[in-house]
């Protein structure tokens, strides 16, 4: 394992993890994150030379911006202080906005580009959690899609990532690869690929997605989409396969609930 922590990094990681405690009261605590400069520090740590530190930051930020935190107290016990609970979503959205202003999304995209998904499980999980973080931000900030399109390379990364491994091969070999189970796509990689496709759909949808749709088309998205569909269609017609979600590894969060946002039920590749 090349990513060992030196002592200062252990202390750093501990401090990062402790921020999770703040989810207990976003209204009170989140504004402090911005005031104390912690937001910009966290964004910068995404470029830390120790990849594990950057992954730790991603995980914590994903947790801090989670739907569950934003919805804490909504529809809850009537006896609770309404000011505290009703403000949770606003506080989380404000944090999201501050994170974006600190260039978080660009830095997160740069970070996932250096992750070696195929080799390290932790880095594969890191991609998954980064996509989760971006999805959280998109749901908190309706116009984020426009910013992402104009200021980051996320769209290009997604277009590349959602292509299956067999796509570069000759057409004849694609079917053969599906048959050969040992060369079948690793379920964890498939899960990230599927998540990339989901995030793409989210980016393009609605009024806020107009810029993203233009960029998608200009960057060859139509061709990529058609190729991906034709590969899956060809392999499915030749070798019908199940896409049983229970085969996918659990990166300690259940994802299917999120896809209800764009009306998709169940995930099929």
């Amino acid at each position, binding site marked *: 394992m090349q990513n060992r922590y030196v002592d200062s990094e252990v202390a750093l990681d501990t401090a990062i993890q402790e921020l999770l405690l703040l989810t207990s009261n976003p209204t009170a605590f989140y504004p402090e994150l911005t005031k104390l400069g912690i937001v910009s520090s966290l964004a910068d740590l995404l470029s830390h030379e120790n990849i594990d530190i950057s992954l730790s930051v991603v995980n914590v930020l994903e947790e801090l911006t989670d739907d569950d935190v934003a919805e804490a107290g909504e529809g809850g016990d009537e006896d609770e202080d309404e000011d505290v609970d009703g403000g949770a979503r606003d506080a989380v959205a404000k944090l999201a906005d501050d994170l974006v202003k600190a260039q978080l999304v660009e830095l997160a995209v740069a970070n996932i580009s250096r992750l070696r998904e195929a080799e390290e499980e932790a880095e594969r999980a890191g991609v998954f959690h980064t996509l989760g973080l971006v999805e959280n931000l998109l749901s908190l900030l309706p116009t984020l899609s426009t910013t992402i399109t104009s200021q980051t390379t996320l769209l290009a990364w997604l277009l590349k990532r*959602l292509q299956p491994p067999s796509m570069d091969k000759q057409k004849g070999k694609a079917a053969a690869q599906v048959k050969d189970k040992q060369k079948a796509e690793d379920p964890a990689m498939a899960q990230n690929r*599927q998540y990339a*496709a*989901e995030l*793409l*759909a989210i980016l*393009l*949808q609605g009024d806020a*997605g107009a810029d993203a*749709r*233009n960029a*998608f*088309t200009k960057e060859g*998205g*139509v*061709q990529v*989409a*058609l190729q*991906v*569909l*034709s590969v*899956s*269609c060809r392999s*499915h*017609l030749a070798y019908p396969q199940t896409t049983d979600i229970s085969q996918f590894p659990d990166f300690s969060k259940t994802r299917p609930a999120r896809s209800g946002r*764009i009306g*998709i039920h169940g*995930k*099929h*590749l």
Partner: protein
Amino acid sequence: MENIFDALCSALSSSETKAIFVQEEGTELMVIMMREKLLARTRAIKVLDHAMSGEAGAQACETFVDAQGLKGLFSALMQTVSLNNSAPSHHRLNPAPSLRKRKLVKSGAF
């Protein structure tokens, strides 16, 4: 895969995308995918609906008809009619009749 269909549907709101879709033989691919079962077929029909809508959809309509799309569409509809009496397929039935009407009118076949 559903997500890719959805992304395409969103993008197809622009004429530029419609034009590229037809150039890249997207119409033909969707016609092939109409032979699939379940969600792939419904999604393919939905993509075709977007691709063929409006003035900019005219080229897709012509390509659709040339690619034997009507045959595929009718056989898909025949299947949904015969399943009419079984409960869960109503979500497939709903898009089909209105799509058919628009496509037939736009493709100028009738």
